[in-house]
């Protein structure tokens, strides 16, 4: 180490100026080096919504590069599917996107129904749609609450979780579970609805728009919320397609694409709902899209309540499910985007290969692109806006 002589006041001022201007000043020793630094963000960070680790290359607060490191929650779900019979795979799907278990069950069952060529009774279709939409509401409410908290808006969390609690009560009443629902079966549903369930859902749904107004009153025109979200993580629609982004991210960038409309499954084609889109493709627009989607879900639920007729809840499915030795891909619009399953059968009662196309995993891919050039505090907003669930990313 060379001996450092104390700087005079003048030298000190010059050095500070040099640093401030970002100039090279060879004669004057700099007080502190401005240099790239590597920073670990997570896996035990509350804003990463699970166990996501990001290796950040930062210049001060500015992110030069963000490298996601996933896999902390990898449980080999796809391997487990192969070892068990078709119906035994359904509970595993609950544990992928664990804030939206019903949609996972749905996508899994739909794939195998497609392979078998089974028709689902109308009542089962409607109940499935209702469970899906309730789950979408629950998932968006979790998103609203937690991403609000990440950005310092604590109050919406309490409101959002109040409503989510009611939805979980509906699930509990229907199938006994609140989180890992296991609420669908290949060819239909495990149970019929309990008496009064539909009326209670209708009551909840009628009340919901006013409650969404409450959340919007807290956030939509809130100056701080807008400062934290407008212009953060802008991505164009074209780039979304290029990067495979689906769900509210795609719709927030101006592309009106929703699998419920594009390739309708169950009875979505006869339900009247709008696909909310926005054009700017920033975090604020994705927030608006999700909130509008909640309103549309309420609309869909209301229509289902009116259309629901007594009837069967299970299609004609053999006792032992042995699909033909073929392959099939089916996907649904989960709260996060396109959730698909690719199933290869070899004619036995177990899938030869069952692959999940998780929306969170593919959407998370875009995080380095979104985060580049933003500040670390914006990274928190971006993780929130992608709406990842690490159970689904890692499987």
């Amino acid at each position: 180490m060379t001996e450092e002589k104390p700087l005079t006041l003048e030298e000190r001022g010059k050095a500070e100026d040099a640093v401030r201007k970002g100039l090279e000043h060879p004669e004057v020793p700099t007080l502190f080096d401005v240099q790239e630094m590597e920073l670990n963000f997570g896996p035990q960070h509350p804003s990463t919504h699970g166990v996501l680790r990001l290796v950040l290359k930062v210049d001060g607060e500015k992110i030069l590069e963000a490298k996601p490191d996933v896999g902390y929650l990898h449980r080999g779900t796809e391997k487990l599917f192969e070892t068990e019979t078709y119906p035994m795979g359904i509970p595993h799907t609950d544990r992928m996107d664990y804030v939206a278990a019903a949609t996972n069950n749905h996508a899994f069952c739909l794939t195998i129904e497609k392979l078998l060529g089974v028709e689902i009774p109308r009542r089962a279709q409607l109940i499935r749609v209702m469970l899906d939409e309730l789950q979408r509401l629950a998932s968006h409410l979790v998103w609203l609450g937690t991403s609000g908290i990440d950005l310092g808006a604590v109050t919406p969390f309490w409101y959002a979780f109040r409503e989510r609690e009611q939805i979980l009560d509906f699930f509990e009443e229907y199938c006994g579970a609140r989180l890992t629902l296991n609420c669908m079966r290949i060819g239909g549903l495990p149970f019929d609805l309990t008496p009064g369930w539909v009326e209670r859902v209708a009551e909840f749904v009628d009340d919901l728009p006013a409650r969404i107004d409450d959340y919007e009153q807290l956030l939509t025109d809130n100056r701080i919320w807008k400062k934290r979200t407008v212009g953060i993580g802008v991505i164009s629609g074209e780039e979304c397609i290029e990067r495979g982004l689906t769900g509210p991210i795609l719709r927030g960038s101006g592309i009106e694409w929703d699998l419920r409309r594009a390739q309708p499954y169950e009875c979505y084609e006869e339900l009247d709902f709008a696909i909310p889109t926005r054009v700017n493709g920033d975090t604020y627009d994705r927030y608006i899209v999700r909130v509008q989607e909640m309103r549309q879900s309420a609309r869909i639920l209301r229509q289902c309540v009116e259309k629901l007729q007594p009837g069967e809840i299970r299609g004609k499915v053999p006792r032992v499910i042995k699909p033909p030795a073929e392959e099939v891909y089916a996907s649904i619009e989960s709260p996060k985007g396109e959730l698909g399953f690719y199933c290869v059968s070899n004619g036995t009662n177990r899938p030869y290969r069952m692959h999940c196309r998780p929306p969170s995993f593919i959407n998370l891919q875009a995080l380095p692109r979104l985060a580049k050039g933003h500040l670390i505090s914006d990274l928190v907003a971006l993780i929130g806006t992608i709406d990842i669930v690490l159970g689904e990313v890692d499987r």
Partner: protein
Amino acid sequence: MSEEKPPPPPATPAPGGQEKPRETPRKLEAADASGHPWVESLRSGVPDSVVSAKEFARQVTVVVKREKIAEVARHLKEKEAFRYCVDVTAVDWKKREPRFDVVYHFYSFSKNDRIRVKCGVADGGEVPSIAPVFLAADWSERETFDMFGIRFTGHPDLRRILTWEGFHGYPLRKDFPVEGIDTGAAVYPEEWPEGLGPSPDDPNRKVVS
């Protein structure tokens, strides 16, 4: 609430209800799709690429040659408007030659339809990466490499993604045990640099069963 029982569903659907009479499930069968316009387009656009094509449950599957896959992907994207790469994965056929199928799904917004493209690859073989064509395929290819050990040439950053660096084995291969393997080697690479873990007679060896 044991006294509350759901009412039994009525035997006949309510009059005026929209219950349609259900057809008996028909057996689905795969059909040859070599005359499909997309397959024809591939044949003319990328000569000597298509091996076979079939259609099952209104889904078209095209088997192409391994070395042509990047060209096929580019052709589908640019000429046939399959702009969205949904997914990349693989299937291990264990005893078949070539051992693996790499499976790609593409979606076209204008056609509102999907196409499945497959190519066979042997154990230790390499597949041209489509990540330069579709950015979306980046992580999916990494996952396929991680789970099956299929290498993608031309991939910008082919590393393990779900398991960790230094993990030994490819979990979704059929010969990988479901109960897992001893991963001591990966946790202590300085002690067992081979990545194989302690030898079977080592007292430190933990048997996972």
